């Protein structure tokens, strides 16, 4: 069975016909040609496929495309304004927060989502006071970024980059 959907991907409207079994990740990569989100584990465990879906960070490998008709998707490729990179992207470059770079688009989208969640005052598992303001400590960054794996092990500089990206 096929379904017709419309997505707004990195600011561009895209109509496509998808088999109902198609994940949002496959629709983005194969249907739209948006290859910033990566297929790592394809089982929701690595975070390489993370994008901002209607403004929130999500994994796309366990979402069915047909269920997200009308959605607004921003991938890591859509975060820049022309030649001006997003501050989080700048911070990843400045801090050398990658080696092979495969997980980086997911890391960057996740970090942008994390900073929004912190700005909204949402606590995490390591926030001491559930009702108080959230301070972006390194422990907070590590906890909140735990859904993004980096097999090269660039975690130390990723934490630095997320901290810088918040400024």
């Amino acid at each position, binding site marked *: *069975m096929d*379904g017709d959907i419309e997505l707004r991907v990195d600011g561009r409207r895209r109509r496509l016909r998808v*088999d*109902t*079994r198609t*994940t949002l990740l496959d629709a983005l990569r194969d249907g739209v040609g948006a290859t910033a989100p990566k297929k790592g584990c*394809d*089982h*929701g465990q690595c*975070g390489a496929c*993370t994008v901002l*879906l209607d403004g*929130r*960070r*999500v*994994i796309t*490998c*366990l*979402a*069915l495309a*047909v*269920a997200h008709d009308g959605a607004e998707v921003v991938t890591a490729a859509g975060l820049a304004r022309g030649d001006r990179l997003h501050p989080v992207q700048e911070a990843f470059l400045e801090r050398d927060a990658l080696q092979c770079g495969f997980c980086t688009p997911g890391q960057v989208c*996740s970090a942008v*989502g*994390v900073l929004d*969640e912190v700005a*909204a005052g*949402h*606590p*995490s*598992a390591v*926030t001491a006071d*559930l*009702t108080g303001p959230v301070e972006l400590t390194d422990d907070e960054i*590590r*906890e*909140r*970024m*735990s*859904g*993004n794996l980096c097999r090269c092990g660039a975690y130390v500089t990723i934490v630095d980059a997320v901290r810088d990206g918040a400024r």
Partner: protein
Amino acid sequence: MPFDYRRAPDPESAVAAATGWAGVAFLAGGTNLVDHLKLGLTSPEVLVDITGLPLDEVEELPDGGLRIGATVRNADLAAHPVVRRDYPVLARALLSGASGQIRNLATTGGNLLQRTRCVYFQDLTTPCNKREPGTGCSAIGGYTRHHAILGASAHCVATHPSDMAVAMAALDAQVAVLGTGGRRVVPLVELHRLPGDEPHRDTVLAPSDLITSVDLPPLPPGTRSLYRKVRDRASFAFALVSVAAVLRVEDGVVEDVRIALGGVAHKPWRARRAEDVLRREPADEEAFRRAIDAELAGAAPLEGNGFKVPLTRNAVVSALRELSREQR
């Protein structure tokens, strides 16, 4: 396998769309179901998309309780000001589950109905009574680090993976269900089943039964609660053992105590024996130990998970100690 995809505009039509099919599934966040479609663990003929249902609100009830819509995202529930203020056990349980990206998709109803992460259940090449009744249990005599120590059977030793459900079990949550025969309310502690000789049935629900909301009764003033999770990694891992504890102490005496355990059974395990021992007793460590020992007298660990017995004991004692300290 291909499936017929249908969007439901309201709960009644969702149930109607799901009625009459042997292989039917409701699609919400998809974080467990879509994985199972890929793994071949399930191949429904019909998928009913319920993400558009008007069940995404958290509502304060006149009695001071809270009504949580079935499609409220785990992240939104954890961030809800009333949950953070009045039900810290629930906020903490939610925040300790999965990852930020998954919590932004996963829903209340879907979290309750997620299936075990038993490695044998998820591996089509091994026998599993939950996946294929009558084929046997590969976990018994196999790798059992994540398996049950309470309430298991000779047919299945799987554990329920949810953190949220453990907190809700301790909070005496009530689950509203819409089925072909109308509406009914199922206490959360009765939603999930023990495996017995039908481990393929995780819950008491029929395939066309739709969870529409979960109600949390109010907690009396002075009640404290917390969630403690022990796992192999500091984050993004399922519980080896978890404890949801709700405690009210007056003049050093336990007035109200509710304890639910995760990672130890086929369902969120409400520790009623421990609660009975502890009620009206002094809120001290000796009583906490006596209480959890009474509960764990019924434990039957497997070859690879005997560590869970002392781990559960220590986690419960430490949780109760922390809660009673807050109330001196």
